[in-house]
């Protein structure tokens, strides 16, 4: 048996609302199937299962309560696959509930929280988890050697917290801003950003796209941003150090290239869901996937993998006239790529000055993971790839 817990669907999520179950007790599901719908502060998300199994028992019914990340929502039998750590803490870390064995902390002499003012002894993993879950380590009894606070202790403390009182009516807009504020403040607090910019000649891509779209029916035309996403994905193959996450004090490269594309939502705010394996897909496939992603982002039907998988973020404010943007990295990602508005500028080519359409591409990089030199190589590769649009 394993527990399906409130997942953490992004760095800015501390709690979510269980909107609906998509499986009933006793129902079998395959890995990747939608089993529940969770509403975060940003949007509703269809949560896919990491495992194949059977939903045995529902512990929490859908409702308006905001449920902390890590709270057990259901019990399942796992037939194959592995639950991620957030969803599979050890059984004794589960929240106490009727019929369940008494939690370990209650069995022996209760460990005491660290004295006020003292730095609580805790493993790095436990510290990080406490930060994610908003648990004050000073109030957590440690059950490890010499009273050290373990990962399970943090999970138990988070689960044992009373569910927050029903939130006062608060607009989705405000909750969205709060979520963005939390993620961006964390990014600026923790990530030493460096910023690079380069100007890229867009005349070849422009001409290629115009010719390609002229041949296509209106329903199959490509947007300007799609070849740019593909070029970023291919450039990341050349400089993979920018593609991944900062985890456990180390940069971890991702084996897949899954750029998160920033999509503004009507009424304000934004999400940046993943275009999975963008480096391997054709432009037509990427265009269809992007159109689908925008539609579902605005309809509130994104999938959990799309929210949690992005390995880098791509954003553009060019449509609103911005020529250069320096973005804030979305933790735990390692970088963000920004595109500005294509503009005509004097350009020297083959010794002559001519008018060319150019775009400013920027990179915000995490200096813990890479140096500016790697970032510069990435932008150089990006500019080079864009000069051969037919190969994208």
């Amino acid at each position, binding site marked *: 048996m394993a527990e399906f817990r409130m997942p953490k669907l992004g760095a800015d999520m501390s709690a979510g609302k269980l909107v609906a179950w998509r499986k009933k007790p006793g129902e079998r599901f395959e890995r990747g199937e939608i089993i529940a719908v969770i509403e975060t502060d940003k949007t509703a998300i269809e949560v896919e299962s990491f495992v194949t199994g059977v939903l045995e028992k529902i512990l929490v019914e859908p409702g308006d309560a905001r449920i902390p990340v890590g709270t057990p929502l259901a019990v399942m039998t796992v037939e194959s696959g592995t639950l991620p750590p957030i969803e599979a803490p050890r059984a004794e870390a589960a929240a106490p509930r009727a019929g369940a064995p008494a939690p370990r902390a209650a069995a022996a002499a209760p460990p005491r929280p660290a004295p006020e003012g003292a730095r609580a002894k805790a493993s790095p993993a436990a510290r990080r988890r406490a930060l994610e879950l908003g648990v004050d380590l000073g109030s957590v009894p440690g059950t490890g050697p010499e009273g050290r606070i373990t990962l399970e202790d943090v999970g138990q403390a988070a689960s044992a917290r009373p569910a927050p009182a029903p939130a006062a009516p608060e607009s989705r807009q405000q909750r969205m801003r709060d979520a963005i504020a939390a993620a961006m403040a964390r990014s600026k607090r923790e990530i030493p950003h460096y910023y690079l910019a380069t100007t890229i000649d867009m005349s070849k891509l422009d001409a290629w796209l115009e010719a390609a*779209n*002229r041949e296509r029916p*209106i329903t199959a*035309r490509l*947007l300007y941003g799609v070849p740019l996403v593909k070029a970023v994905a291919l450039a990341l193959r050349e400089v993979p150090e920018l593609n991944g996450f900062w985890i456990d004090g180390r940069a971890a490269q991702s084996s897949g290239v899954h750029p998160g594309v920033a999509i503004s939502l*009507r009424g304000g705010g934004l999400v940046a869901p993943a275009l999975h394996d963008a480096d391997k897909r054709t432009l037509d496939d990427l265009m269809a996937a*992007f*159109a689908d992603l925008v539609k579902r982002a605005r309809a509130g039907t994104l999938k959990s993998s799309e929210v949690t998988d992005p390995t880098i973020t791509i954003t553009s404010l060019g*449509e609103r006239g911005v020529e250069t943007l320096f973005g804030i990295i979305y933790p735990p990602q390692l970088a963000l790529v920004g595109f500005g508005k294509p503009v005509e500028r004097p350009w020297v080519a083959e010794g002559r000055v001519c008018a060319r359409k150019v775009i400013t591409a920027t990179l915000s990089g995490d200096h813990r993971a890479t140096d500016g030199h790697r970032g510069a190589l990435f932008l150089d590769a990006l500019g080079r790839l864009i000069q051969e649009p037919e190969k994208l």
Partner: protein
Amino acid sequence: MSTTQDRILRVLGDIVPELEPAELKPGVNLRDQLDLDSMDFLNFMVALHKEFGVDIPEAEYRKFLTLDGCVQYIEAAKGGKPC
């Protein structure tokens, strides 16, 4: 209000659910008034193509930037008659 304009506004309402037709200024850029991004605008072009059966080359998109422009283009494409 012409029938053509009614149908355009209905199409636009599917893309912009919060659309208030009475507040729309027919001669002002739709993208600015309604905060349409490139995907919204492409969806608008595709929806007009399906609704009216007119071809809209990419080079002609700029003629659809205002409500008045949309009406003029579509009615011209349909032989100059309201449709």
